[in-house]
Each structure stands twice: as C-alpha cells, then as structure tokens.
C-alpha cells in the first residue's frame, strides 16, 4: 500500500472529515448498539472469524476516526474483506425493525464503497485492485483471463467472440449486455441466453462497442473510471437507439439499476433494464417458452447474492427450475442462503483469491450435504470459484441459463476460438 497526497484538488483531511460527517450517525447506530447480528451471515467472517473484518468493525472505524483514534491509512486495507453481498444489511436489527418507517437502513455496502473510494482518492491503493483497474482501463474490459502470457484476447476485438455463428445484429431497441467474465471466460452462458431469446422470438442485438459496465471499478473505489466507462456505454446505447438492455449477470444488473441512475439521473430515465431470468420466467409463465427435454439431475440452487440479498429476486430462478422436467430440485430457502456466498464479489477474488476459495469451499460443503450432483448458479462470477471448489467434491457447477437451454433442446455449442476459456 502506498500513500500520497490527493489528486482531486481537495485536502485529504477535508475529504476525510466530510466522509466522517456524512457517515457519523449511521456509524453510531451500529456502534452504539453493538449487537453484531450481521456477523454470522457475513461470508468473510464465517471463514476468517476475524472481528476486524465485519460490518460492525467497518462502522466502528468511522466512530474511531471521528474520535481521532484511527486514520484512513490504518483501516483502508481492512475494507478489502467484503464481497458487498448485502447479507449484513438484511440481518441488521436497525434495518429489520425500524427501516420501513424511518426510511433508514444499514448500508454497509455503500460504506465499504465509500471508504474504498476515499482511499483511492487519497492515493491509498490495494495492489491487486490497482493493477486490475489499470488493465481494465487499458483494455476496456476486465483482465478475467489473467495476465500470464500477455497475449490473451481480452480486448475490444474479441468482446463478441462468444457469439460466433449466432448471427446477432448490432444495435436495435433491445440489446443483450454481456459482462466481462461471461464474454471472455464463461462464454457458454451468453450463448445459452442468446439462443433462448432467439428460441422465444425476442428480437435483440449487441452493442456497437461494449465496454466493461464500470461496476467493478466502482466497487473497488475507482469511481472516476467507473464513471467514464458508464458514460461510454450510455453514449453507445444512445447512438444506436437502445431502449432496453437485457442483462444476464447480477453484477451488471446492480450497476445498471443502481449506479447508472445515480450517475445520470433523468438522462437515464427511459432506459429499461431487464434481467434475463425475470424475462425467461415470464415467458415460461405465458407459455412462450416450454422446457420439455427432461434433465435427470439432482440439483440445488445457489442464490446469487446480488439477486437474493441485494435485489430480493429469488422466486423467478426457482420458477424456472421447477419448470424443467426431470430435475430433482433440493431447494434451500432464500433466508438460509443469506449466509451463503461464492466469495467472488466486489474484488475479493482480485485481492485475496485464497479467501474467495475458502468461501466457495464452504458454499460447496453446504451443497454436498444435500447429496446432489450439481449446484446451479445464475451468476457467472460465482461460477468459476464454485466450480473449482466443486471439482474437489465431484459437484458440477451449472449455470441456470444453460440448464434452461438444455431443457429447451438448444445445443449451446462453443464459439470458434473457445480454446482460451
């Protein structure tokens, strides 16, 4: 970690004071009650058991900064230990019992983003985040294929390689946005989504020049970069008359439904963001999609944090799974799954891959208790660490969209040049 003066023209001390004043009451609401109901649902806490890496500590630091006991430099690295899954916010008594009436909720995710952003503004970088965001800035996409040979095709020329042979147009009122992990690594997921849309007769195209959504940069504290990427994408949508964006990745869904509206306000009002899972569940309900090829597997479903905990979307994935004939679906309720996570979110796997692996191993252990042969997820980012943990226990990790495609009789196929995945 390095530290130098702020590059944004403000004195670091003044920016920190402003931050402390903004978060002071929220921090005391947590600190003074001090009850820590969040602790045992926190994916990092469950595997590390370190009280400094808990939502309670993240709030207490603000109180300590106000009291002059701690500085930003001293605490910045602790804030790496969060996947921004949102479980702590749901479990917080301050949210549970008074949130509706007082329009208050505990906002640990925003707090973590704010501290990370403040740190970056003041030149306090975490090495993994720093490198990741520099590469993303350079390539316009996250370096999801690693940097080993320097020649991996994470760049603009290859962002739509996944769609080879599918004959997808560019532009149109509706486009499909594919996140970096799915576009360059887990390419079978966007292939499945695209072909289900074609199967259902939903017209859609691809972006003219898609860049990373900017969400990961925002999550790691690189707010300016996030803003530039968002601006590019919105301008690209405008240039081709986009009205509706279909997303398959829960992380993109958060970025487009929370970050972009904050960044662009009214300018963004007429853009509709559609989650593929909700769209497909609706099409099944209306009889426009009928999965009829039996899939004879014993499965359970992993609620992606950003759907279940952040957005309250847990019915539709289950509707889809229950519509697939042949599945032996051993479900775990969504509230129990508040404690589950893959550990891949918010840059944790960038800075601390070993911690992501531990969290995924724990998630797979829960799945293994159900004696299933596959864990179905609906988040491309979760699927890599979960699959790695699953391999050790003979549990396949399958994407919900791919499973639906299979039951619709779609052969997802592999794009040309798949070998790098």
């Amino acid at each position, binding site marked *: 970690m390095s530290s130098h003066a702020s590059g944004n023209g403000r004195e670091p001390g003044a920016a920190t004071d402003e931050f402390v004043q903004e978060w002071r009451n929220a921090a005391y609401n947590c600190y*003074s009650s*001090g009850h820590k109901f969040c602790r045992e649902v926190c994916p990092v806490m469950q595997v590390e058991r370190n009280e400094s890496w808990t939502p309670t500590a993240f709030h207490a630091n603000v109180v300590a900064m106000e009291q002059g006991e701690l500085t930003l430099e001293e605490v910045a690295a602790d804030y790496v230990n969060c996947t921004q899954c949102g479980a702590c916010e749901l479990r917080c008594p301050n949210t549970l019992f008074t949130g509706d009436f007082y329009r208050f909720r505990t906002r640990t995710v925003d707090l973590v983003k704010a501290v990370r952003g403040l740190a970056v503004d003041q030149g306090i970088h975490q090495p993994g985040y720093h490198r990741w965001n520099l590469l993303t800035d350079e390539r316009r996409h996250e370096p999801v294929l690693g940097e080993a040979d320097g020649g991996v095709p994470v760049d603009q020329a290859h962002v739509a390689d996944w769609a080879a042979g599918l004959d997808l147009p560019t532009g149109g009122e509706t486009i499909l946005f594919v996140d970096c992990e799915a576009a360059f690594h887990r390419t079978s997921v966007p292939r499945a989504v695209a072909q289900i849309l074609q199967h259902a007769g939903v017209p859609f195209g691809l972006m003219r020049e898609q860049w990373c959504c900017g969400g990961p940069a925002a999550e790691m504290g690189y707010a300016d970069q996030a803003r530039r990427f968002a601006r590019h994408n919105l301008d690209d949508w405008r240039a081709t008359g986009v009205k509706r964006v279909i997303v398959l990745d829960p992380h993109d869904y958060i970025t487009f439904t929370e970050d972009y509206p904050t960044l662009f306000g009214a300018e963004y009002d007429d853009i509709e963001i559609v989650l593929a899972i909700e769209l497909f569940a609706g099409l099944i309900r209306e009889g426009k999609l009928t999965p009829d090829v039996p899939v004879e597997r014993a499965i359970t479903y992993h609620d992606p944090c950003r759907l279940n905990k952040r957005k309250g979307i847990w019915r539709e994935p289950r509707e889809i799974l229950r519509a697939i004939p042949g599945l032996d679906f051993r479900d775990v309720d969504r509230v129990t799954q508040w404690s589950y996570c893959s550990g891949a979110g918010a840059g944790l796997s960038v800075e601390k891959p070993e911690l992501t692996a531990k969290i995924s191993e724990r998630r797979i252990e829960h799945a293994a208790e159900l004696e299933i042969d596959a864990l179905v997820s609906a988040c491309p980012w979760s699927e890599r660490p979960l699959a790695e943990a699953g391999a050790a226990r003979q549990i396949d990790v399958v994407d919900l969209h791919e499973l639906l495609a299979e039951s619709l009789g779609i052969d997802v196929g592999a794009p040309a040049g798949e070998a790098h995945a």
Partner: protein
Amino acid sequence: MSLVAGGIDDRALEALAHVLGPDHLLTSRPARLHRARVPAPFPVHRWADHTPDAVVLPGSTEEVAEVVRIANRFGIPVVPRSGGTGLTDGAVPLRHGILLDLKRLDRIHELDLENRTCTVGAGMNMLKLNERLAAHGLIYPDDPASYPCSLVGGRIGTSGWSLIGSRYGHTRDLVLSFVHVLPSGEVVRFGDGGGPKVSKSSTGYTLKPLFMGHQGTLGVATEATLKLYPKPEAELSPFWAFEDYDSAHRAVRELVRADCATFAGAVLFDEAKVRYLRRDDEAYIPQPESVRALVCAVLYGNEDEVRPGGRRLMRIARENGARYLGDEISQGDWAARHDRYATPLHGRTKAGQVVPMSWHCEDAAINWPALPAVTGKWHEIVGELRRKSDVFDDWGVFAYTSARTGVDYLTEIDVGIWEQELDDAAWALWVEAKRDIAAVAVAHGGSISACHGACREGEVDLVPDELGGGYEVMRTLKRALDPNNVMNPGKYGLDGAFEEDLK
C-alpha cells in the same frame, strides 16, 4: 524493552507469534480497538483506556493454554472474548494485555445422536449450530436475546440466561461439560462427575457451576458438550393485554402456577414499556389506548401437549382480566422478541426531540412479590437521571420468568443512551445510577444480575454486599487458582484478593 504493541515486550510477542503464527497474532491499532468494547454502555471518549495490547486468535485448546502460560511467564493480563455480546463488560480489558479471541474455535467436534449431545468449540454460535442440527430434528435451546451472534464460550463464561429456560433450563443446565483452561494454563474438563455426557453425578465436588459465570477471571472454556432436545413440533405464544400493571403482574403469577409442562416462559411488560413502544417503536403492532400492560407466554412441545396447555392458559388469563390480542401479534411479536435486541435507533430528549440513542438493559433477579416495588424505584432512578441529562431516556421494564415455579424473574429496565454525547459528567451520572439500580435489587432480596453478570463500574461495588461471606470465598479461590492474577484482572474487584501479597 520496546513497546511495539502497547505494553507487551518483544519476547512475549515472539513467544505468542511462535505459538499462533503471524496471521493469528494481531497488533494493529484497528484490530485492538475493535476488541475493546461490548454492547454495554461504553465511554466512547475513553476508548483507548480499554484497548488491549495484542489480540490472539487461537485455533485449538492447546494454543489457548500456551497463550495463558506465556501470560503467566511474562505477567501479562489475558482477557477472553468470544462473541463480545455481553452486557457486563466481561470482555472489556481493564488493564490492556492480551485479548484472547475465541471465534476461530467454531467447529462441531462430535454429534452424538444416541445420547443427543454435541461437542462444539467455544466459538460456535447457537443459530449456526441449530441450522446444522435441524437436519436431525434436534435443537440446542439456549436462547438469549443475542441468539444470532453470541457464542457458546461466552454463554459459559457469563452463565447465560435463556428466554425459554423455564422449559429447557439455562446455559448451566444445557452445558453438560466443558474443556477449560485454568489460569495456570492447565487443561481440565468440568462436568457433573468425570464423564463428559453425564447430567447428574455425586462424585467429588460439583465444580462445573464454579467455572461458569466467572467472566474470565478463573480461566476460559474452549470446548463444550451440550444437551440437545427434539425440535418441538408445536409452539404457542399468546399475547394478552391488561388495563393496568397490577392486573398483569397478578396474571403472570397465575399463568406460571398453572404448571403446564410445556410452559417455556412468560414476559411482563410494564406501563412505561407499553408507553415507550407506543411512542417510538414503529415495529410494534399498535394497540388501543386501553392497553397499558402486556403479558406474553410461550409453550413449546408436542402438539398434543401444547394444545391443552394453551387452552388452560387462555382460560386462566381470561379469569385474570386479560384480553387475548389475536394470532397476528402473537406470532409476529413473539418471533420478533428473539431479535428485539436493538429496538429503535432513537429516543427523545425531554423536549421531545428525536435523537439517535442505543438500547441498554440493566438486569436483576427479583422475586415475584418485589416486582412492583423494584419497578417503581428503578423508574425513579432513571427519571432522575433523565432530569439531569438528555443523554438518557427511560424505555420501560420487562420481567421474564427465570424458572418454571415463577419464584424469580429476570427484571430489566431499558435505558436509551445517546452515546455521541457521552462525556465524563454524563458517564459519572450513569455509573451512579447503575449503582443505585443494583442497590434496589439487593435491598429487595434479589440479585444484581440474573443474566449479564455484575462486574461493571457502579454495580460491582455492591457485589460483596450481595454475596456476603461468599465473596470472601471468591477471593480465596481467585488467589489459589490464579496466583499471578493474569486472568481478566480488575474484574469483580478481585484485585483485592492480592492485597495481602502486596503488603
């Protein structure tokens, strides 16, 4: 001697690092500050007074024992902390030193379905344990308000109280035996007799209760063997309304005296509590103005036992002037009762201005006949506190049954505290009030604490009065078992046990 981490010298740090490895010995300022407080009222402005010098996160009983041996060798205080959710500052360091954080001891070592026991590390949480036990139709029914976050080790160290203890017993009844590291670093097992799963023995001294509730002054439990019960197939949790406190107070006695075998507990809400809920707790389901006091009860067990028991309690409540509030509040509020630990985020100044306050609860064990007098005097004390300072607000009194005979009640007055505004003057007022609250309990033949412990500033002064000759025995035991006074020094006034040595 260099002071790398507070006041611990390098040789001690090296010895600790050798035992724990670099990842589990923490000396950063944040790591130490995060383990300085518990949810009890805390003088925020004096945070640094309570910061440990180093934090250790041991992964086994042997590592805990090694840490304690090192502490003896170098004369360093050791403060055990598991959940850090206690309300008597047991886990708050008074002399800095080594903070022994037990959260990594969170494994289930054994699940014995034949004897219906399980053996877990002291860092295990009850909610997490019950998630695992559910697959076997079993529960571990230790049910404090901190159920989602407190840990088994802290339950032993504080001798915890359970909301449904009238049915299943409290921590002391539910923990069959435990592995304990003595202040010398020696590892022993305490239970009823020698067998780890025996629930009644007459062999030798009954040592198990002595090593519970000592707030870390007599060592630290690292692993516990727990009693499990079948998960009850039925639950009934009626809420009844009364027009005044006296009727509710009489009714709760009659409900307990009915002696239903499935009766798990009852809670009495006084008039100030209902006024406060009506004023400021929007999660509370609104009731007509005629509702001034409440009683809720809960029954757990087999359906064919809970149903007739429930009918009997409904009849008794009716005969005692109660109005049943219906199924919605019964189910909703009872479910919430397990979680009503933080309540609202705010209280009010005397002028009615909403300000951010946190909930603090002062508890005592009080016999049924004394409840009205104690409740009244406590409101006078908190009322006086409030007259002097807007930092404090009276949030009413609850009384919970502790035992199925109804002999005594965990009685608590809830006080809102505006911690942002705490300063030395307000803190001194608070400590004085705390002492007065404890004095009322003792004067009425009760006990300073039914569940938190009694080692905080203010209340702790009265412990010798309450225990009489028993307190001298405590001092004798402390000296004998912890001759170097390393285990949580300063707590319960036990430094006094070493005065003769100092002479």
